[in-house]
């Protein structure tokens, strides 16, 4: 395994019989992913895209040795689906579902973590390692195998950027879409060490957004622990201040959380900062060229 997924990843799809579950099972398989099982209570014995469906995660794991889950079940049931996956011993869960209450996600996160598990998401595009495996919904077409690692809080913008890297003639080692919810299972600080330690990644692209302080925390980590070059972009520089989480929210972020504070922190940590998404491939290409000369 390089960063979380590889050829040995055996994917279980929770909510496989739903529209999204079915569509993305097909896409994951087309990507070359070993999708080994699906779970939808009451649908045991059927098949979706050639993948056997089980009633429970425990049965699915017992029968197929699935070791990662991709969760598509609707928000009111997502917490339960994740707990079921954790209880069945699955340690990597990609939660695609959006609109999960953060109170639920707090339980999901801390429970999973207490069992040594990792969540990517919720409300996220997931993770993909071209030529190896994809768990989630990032479009297959944007990828080609390469040595650029991408970590992003965005969805579509990630696709655009990953595609831009491909069009610039470069490829990706692994791309993780973290999701933009208030509580995410994997944040920049959690993902950065994986890429720093990944022998297949030469350059890291970090795509952030305004709100929260995940980018500032990431910058702090980069400053102390990341030796690989980082290219960063923050979306939302011109966005209206928007509806903040009351006064108390401001007290927690302590003046951080704007595009300016994020860009300043990343820049101070040594990251190359792109002003526009389309500048990212160029900055990456420059770095790659410099690395090649060495």
């Amino acid at each position, binding site marked *: 395994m390089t960063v979380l997924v590889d050829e040995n990843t055996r994917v279980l799809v929770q909510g496989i019989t739903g529209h999204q579950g079915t*569509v993305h099972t097909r896409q994951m398989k087309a990507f070359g992913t070993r999708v080994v099982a699906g779970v939808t209570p009451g649908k045991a014995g059927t098949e979706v895209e050639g993948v056997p469906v089980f009633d429970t995660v425990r049965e699915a794991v017992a029968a197929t040795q699935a070791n990662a889950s991709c969760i598509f079940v609707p*928000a*009111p049931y997502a917490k339960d689906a994740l707990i079921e996956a954790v209880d069945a011993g699955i340690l990597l869960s990609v939660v695609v579902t959006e*609109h*999960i*209450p*953060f*109170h639920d996600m*707090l*339980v999901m*996160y*801390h429970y999973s973590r*207490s069992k040594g598990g990792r969540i990517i998401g919720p409300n996220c*595009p997931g993770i993909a390692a071209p030529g190896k495996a994809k768990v989630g*919904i*990032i*479009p297959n*077409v*944007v990828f080609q195998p390469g040595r650029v690692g991408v970590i*992003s*809080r*965005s*969805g*579509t*913008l*990630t*696709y*655009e950027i990953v*595609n831009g890297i491909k069009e610039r003639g470069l490829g990706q080692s692994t791309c993780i879409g973290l999701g*933009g919810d*208030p*509580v995410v299972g994997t*944040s920049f600080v959690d993902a950065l060490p994986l890429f720093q330690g990944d022998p297949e990644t030469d350059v890291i692209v970090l*795509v952030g*957004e*305004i709100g*929260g*302080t*995940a980018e500032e*925390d990431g910058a702090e980590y980069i400053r102390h622990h990341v030796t690989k070059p980082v290219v960063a972009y923050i*979306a*939302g*520089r*011109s*966005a*209206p201040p928007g*509806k903040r*989480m*009351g*006064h*108390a*929210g*401001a*007290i*927690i972020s*302590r003046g951080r959380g704007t595009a300016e504070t994020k860009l300043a922190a990343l820049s101070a940590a040594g990251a190359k900062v792109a*002003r*526009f*998404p*389309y500048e990212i491939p160029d900055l990456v290409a420059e770095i790659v060229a410099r690395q090649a000369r060495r």
Partner: protein
Amino acid sequence: MVKLAEWRGKELFRKYGIPLPRGQVARTPEEAEALARAGTVPLPCVVKAQVLAGGRGKGGAVRFANTPEEAKTAAAAILGLEFKGEKVREVLLEEKLPIARELYLSITLDRSLRLPIVISSAQGGMEIETVDDTAIERTPVHPFPGLASYEKRRVAHVLGVTGPVAKSLDRLLDSLWTLFNREDAELVEINPLAVVGEGLVALDAKVIIEDDAAFRHPEYADIRDDRTPLEEIAREKEIAFVQLDGNIGVIANGAGLTMATLDVLKEFGGNPGVFLDLGGTDDPKKVTEAFLLMARAKPRAVFLNIFGGVTRCDTVARGLVEAMKQVPDAERFPLVARIRGNNEKEGVEILRAAGITSIPTLKDSAQAVIAAAGGAA
């Protein structure tokens, strides 16, 4: 996010056993007078505008009354107000209590820690942002064991309360913690939390319920946020739609891409006026609806920036072409499109057939739409 008015937040407080001043809501000056006369609200009393914005005290939206007549006058003065853009429809009348000290207490989420956090300060009664950081205590609470006694003791220490007041705080914190969790709150805030005699009383209540938890809380379905009429329609159709001051309409898919599009427009001197996030929709009907909504906001030009991932470019293109046919003449606008990604070729072809050229780069397309809207500011 569902922001509860003070009186409604206090209804929740009452349900969870948080001590409050005696009080009642009035919707007319006569009602206010009657409440004071009947003793339902003891005199002297405070009359407070039920608006969501802060700074009511300085803004004349809080008044005092010593007699039923004064209560009526105060209510009449306040019920007429338009406070920071909000029309005042209700006043809350509450007994005036002998306040010894004013404290600050809230629970919200700390995203970085991924934990709820209790925020406390002995300097209550003013906006918490203006309090010196060293006078504010942040106590993270793990949801599994829940609020621990040692955490409550820490808060008591920070607030400088002891004896029976500390006991009152202990109970109040348990109530507030339970409320925060059971009601799916993003924020519960009491400012000021008053020391009155040997107990504590919540003089104000700010409660924000998380939107995503709405399915568990049908009781808040009637609460509307401060949305424009078009925003309200968009919400009903589950389209993310925000009106700004500018003249360029932006339609994109995904919050990140939408924000990045606004950033690029601004950078080149454009002035975005509406933004509309299609999200992950795959449904031509939804796309059509979104376009018609955009048309009603009367932008000078519209920029369609789509990266097809889950969304297919041809689906979006089809919806767009359909919509353009339906837009009334009065609402016509020049359109600049950029569609990339999944089924890009088909999408570009459908647009071309309808006379719309897709410009492949973000830079060029952004500059084109700025020109179409009358040039950079």
